[in-house]
């Protein structure tokens, strides 16, 4: 089973790093989808089926779609490749990588030497029914709060993405209601 | 309501599905190579030459090789050579009559201009061949078809043509008879004159 873990971990790390250094946004998004699938596989490997499938539905089915849509909507002419090192910011790249390295250097040794209490033997089992009971019982308030957050963020996203002023509107949109226009006579 | 039109549409297609199994008005497809389509009488595509007798189609062609159709043909797909005897005298029938069906545009002008009703439009549409040049160039013997066949494919037109030809022939004969009688009456003692200076438009041989 550890072999499966190593394979999934390899998939995650390779695709994630490839996604983050890719010069093509679409490739980044699709590689990151692979990372998310690998993470879902890791959750399944750990025995958290429900979380794994949720991860697949939300990330692969939802977030990736939104990301790809955003990429397509904000696409530049002829998919020119992104710049890896911005012309003004070699310093920024160096600083960013240094900060990352600093965080890694802080975390990894601490993690390796940490005396973690570990369970031996098979992992805990968690049925869907139990998750449902937990969500509807002790965590009900959190569920409601998350629901509110999702609603608010949906409305907020709609507000942000909707055209606000006249010059924001694309030329082809003449401000109609989106209903049948042009090909319809006045009702008699 | 949103569902009514959808259900109506589904009912229409369902009726078609069921009806196609028992209702010949709905199921109108003809399975072509096995079942030949019944062509309408007015259907016409390429020309053919009308011959009088089935046993000798080339000998009884109505065509006199006058070459009017050859001159009129817009895409110039007709090629005619007059048959001549040893002395070079015309025999009033074609030695060569070729129609290149790869060029023919089925305009029917040859039929319109023919004074002898010798060329008519055919109904043969299965003309696919495996060779592009010679196979589509139809010769005299391929083009010659009997008047009976013409009656089969275009009965109305054929009957009208036959009636006209018969009337013309009869008129010509009567005229010839009258002329002969008059000549006989007026110039009895005179020696034999050319009996028939103008040949009737009916086929010579």
């Amino acid at each position, binding site marked *: 089973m*550890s072999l499966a*873990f190593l394979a999934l*971990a390899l998939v*995650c*790390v390779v695709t*994630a790093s490839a996604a*983050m250094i890719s010069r093509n*946004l679409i490739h*980044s*998004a699709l590689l*990151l989808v692979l*990372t998310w699938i690998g*993470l879902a596989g*890791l*959750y399944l490997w*750990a025995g*958290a089926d*429900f*979380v794994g499938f949720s*991860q697949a539905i*939300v*990330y692969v089915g*939802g*977030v990736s779609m*939104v*990301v790809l849509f*955003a*990429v397509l*909507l*904000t696409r*530049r002419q002829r998919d020119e490749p*992104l710049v890896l090192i*911005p012309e003004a910011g070699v310093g*920024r790249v160096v600083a*960013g*990588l240094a*900060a*990352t390295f600093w*965080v*890694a250097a802080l975390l*990894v040794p601490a993690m*390796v030497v940490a005396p*973690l*209490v*570990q*369970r031996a033997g098979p*992992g*805990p089992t*968690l049925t869907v029914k139990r*998750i449902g009971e937990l*969500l509807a019982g002790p965590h009900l308030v959190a569920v409601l709060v*998350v629901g509110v*957050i*999702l609603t608010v*963020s*949906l409305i*907020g*996203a709609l507000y*942000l*993405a909707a055209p606000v002023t006249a010059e924001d509107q694309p030329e082809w949109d003449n401000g109609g209601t989106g209903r049948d226009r042009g090909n319809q006579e006045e009702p008699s | 309501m949103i569902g009514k039109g959808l259900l109506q549409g589904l009912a229409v297609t369902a009726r078609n599905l069921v009806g196609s199994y028992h209702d010949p008005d709905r199921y109108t497809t003809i399975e072509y190579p096995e079942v030949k389509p019944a062509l309408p009488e007015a259907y016409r595509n390429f020309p053919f030459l009308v011959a009088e007798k089935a046993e000798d189609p080339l000998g009884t062609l109505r065509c006199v090789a006058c070459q009017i159709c050859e001159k009129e043909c817009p895409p110039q797909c007709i090629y005619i050579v007059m048959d001549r005897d040893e002395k070079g005298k015309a025999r009033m029938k074609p030695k060569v009559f070729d129609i290149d069906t790869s060029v023919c545009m089925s305009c029917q002008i040859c039929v319109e201009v023919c004074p002898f009703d010798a060329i008519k439009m055919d109904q043969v549409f299965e003309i696919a061949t495996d060779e592009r040049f010679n196979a589509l160039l139809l010769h005299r013997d391929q083009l010659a078809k009997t008047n009976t066949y013409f009656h089969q494919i275009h009965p109305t037109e054929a009957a009208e043509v036959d009636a006209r030809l018969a009337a013309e022939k009869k008129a010509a004969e009567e005229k010839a008879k009258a002329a002969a009688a008059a000549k006989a009456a007026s110039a009895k003692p005179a020696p034999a004159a050319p009996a028939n200076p103008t040949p009737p438009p009916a086929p010579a041989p």
Partner: protein
Amino acid sequence: MSPLHLCLLLSTVLFCIGLAAVLVRTSAILVLLGVELMLNAANLNFIAFWRYGPGGDDTGVIFVLFSIAVAAAEAAVGLALVIALHRHRRTIALKAANQLRG
């Protein structure tokens, strides 16, 4: 090295990849993707501790579920921001987003 340590190491690596992307890349969408990756690394930690931790509590899994839900909301809002930025400045480079009034 125990499986728990491996999991934590993996999540650290993923977190650092995400962090590097956030700090270095200039495209707003890539920065958002980096943030998503960091969130995912954190989720992996929760699952790892649920699986190998002392046990008795399933809160880790529940927390990951909430985290996924919130991450979805974050992605929606973030990408709406990116689209708004693109509409105003015709670019999605982050250095274009330097004005309070668009």
